[in-house]
């Protein structure tokens, strides 16, 4: 209870400070070349079984707090600087931490009236699917939780942003806009969730990511009425075992290929994404070298029945290994067979009260436990196959 009160007070204070900022920005204190934006979001979750973002089972977890503040400054036409700081507290995965989400210099190499080519260097976002780049910016997606089969909460640190460079090309034509991005980055991820995904709960060592290629081609028609994208990443993770570890110094390759399509009508938005991940694991000594595929997809419909009200229905599914969709034999590494898959029916309601405030709620009926965070559920064998999840979120932005 004390924790609840403290967190409410601190969030309230933060909100107060943040809400005074736009006044300063809009009153003309900032030059046109400089912009400041930000948001604060607080979510609460309740689950019938299993835990998400803290102790949500048979209770309410106040576990997801997200605060973002960004600014950009354009000293010359061809040069732009941008940085975003994020504070995030998410259950037992992330007990409150601040990080630089992106911090980059953007140099336009070539620009004409129908497009441009340029490079970005520093910490850049990773373009994978329609939502990965803005996954930590709550109001850019229709529900609190992104479809977990495609946008894992638990391995998020691996794919949110990376240090390195990005080459981009944009071309707009009368037949639509083409945007190409080619990133060469070192992902920031190095946490226990990735270890648990790769090797189960018994592993002791650490993973570190090698430089990675992530690339995306997207095509937008009629100013974004239709959006199509193909994204690909080639991740290499090296495992560094500790003394007494049951696994050797192996390497894992994860290569997701994601195909995305979206229709944005006046009232109706339809989205579908398909993700095929090719995985290779080798050199773990006690584990046989293996290759397998992870497959996930979702289909989602949102309807704006009033200008400020949007209802969303989604079906999201993932199979961790397409050759073992039922999870036979997972007990050997400390996982129940239902950790091999997850199917999630979601309904959600979003209310954009005004340009600054948003409220939303959602209900999930989930079959399977693949994307449950290890940290919130230390004993995976005690998790439940069929469970319900309720979430509400309040957000302020400027």
């Amino acid at each position, binding site marked *: 209870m004390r924790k609840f009160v403290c967190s409410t007070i601190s969030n309230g204070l933060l909100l107060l400070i943040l809400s005074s900022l736009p006044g300063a920005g*809009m009153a003309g204190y900032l030059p*046109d070349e400089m*912009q400041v*934006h930000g948001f604060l979001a607080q979510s609460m979750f309740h689950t019938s079984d299993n835990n998400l973002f803290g102790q949500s089972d048979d209770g309410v977890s106040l576990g997801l707090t997200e605060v*973002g503040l*960004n600014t*950009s400054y*354009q000293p010359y*036409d061809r040069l*732009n600087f*941008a*940085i*975003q700081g994020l504070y995030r507290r998410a259950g037992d995965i992330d007990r409150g931490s601040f990080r630089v989400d*992106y*911090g*980059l210099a*953007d140099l336009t190499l070539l*620009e*004409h*009236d*129908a*497009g*441009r080519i340029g490079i*970005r260097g520093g910490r*850049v*976002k990773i373009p994978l699917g329609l939502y990965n*780049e*803005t996954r930590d*910016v709550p*109001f*850019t997606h229709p529900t609190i939780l992104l479809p977990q089969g495609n946008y894992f909460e638990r391995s998020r640190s691996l794919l949110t942003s990376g240090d390195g460079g990005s080459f*981009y090309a*944009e071309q*707009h*034509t*009368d037949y639509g*806009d083409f945007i190409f991005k080619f990133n060469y980055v070192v992902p920031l991820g190095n946490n226990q969730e990735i270890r648990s995904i790769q090797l189960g709960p018994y592993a002791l060592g650490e993973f570190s990511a090698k430089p990675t290629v992530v690339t995306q081609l997207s095509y937008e028609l*009629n*100013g*974004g*009425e239709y959006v199509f994208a193909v994204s690909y990443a080639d991740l290499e993770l090296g495992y560094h075992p500790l003394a007494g570890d049951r696994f050797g110094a192996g390497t894992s390759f994860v290569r997701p290929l994601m195909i995305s399509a979206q229709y*944005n*009508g*006046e*009232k109706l938005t339809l989205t579908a994404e398909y993700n095929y991940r090719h995985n290779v694991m080798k050199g773990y000594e006690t584990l046989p070298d293996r290759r397998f595929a992870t497959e996930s997809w979702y289909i989602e419909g949102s309807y*704006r029945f009033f*200008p400020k009200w949007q209802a969303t229905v989604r079906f999201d599914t993932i199979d961790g290994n397409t050759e073992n969709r039922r999870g036979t034999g997972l007990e050997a590494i400390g996982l129940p067979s239902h950790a091999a898959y997850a199917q999630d029916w979601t309904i959600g309601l979003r209310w954009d009260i*005004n*340009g600054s405030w948003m409220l939303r709620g959602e209900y999930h009926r989930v079959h399977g436990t693949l994307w449950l965070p290890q940290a919130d559920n230390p004993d995976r064998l005690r998790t439940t196959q069929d469970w319900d999840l309720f979430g509400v979120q309040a957000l302020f932005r400027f």
Partner: protein
Amino acid sequence: MRDSDRGKMSLRVSAIACYCLGLWPLVAGSADIIINDSAPPGRFSRADVRAIFAMRQRLWPNGEQIKVYTLADDHPVHKDFVKNNLNMFPHQFRRAWDRMTYTGTGVAPIQLDSEQEMIKKIMNTPNSIGYVSKKPDNAKIRLFDYQ
């Protein structure tokens, strides 16, 4: 019921149905797109205007950077402009601007509070573009022409 009455009746019913489904335009007017007099002339298409306001087309034909000004998403003139001039919806622009703003890959247009402020900005900012319900009589502001 006579045939003409029946016709009127069905017209009324379909009008109500259209209104309920949101197919009936509440405001049919389009906005005037205005530019600062310093902006160069050129041939522009509707796709160009969309690209300019989506911040994808950033230069005038003479190489000068375009300064883009907008009104709030729920401002009636913004709605008219997006819907009737560009044949788009405000949430499409919002999506594009948010993506840029929150990934560091671009800069959203500067949002102004009123048409009066818009007129002042366009008047005083070289290479600027914006929109109002009706172009003011001002030597420094020109109507933007596009096909």
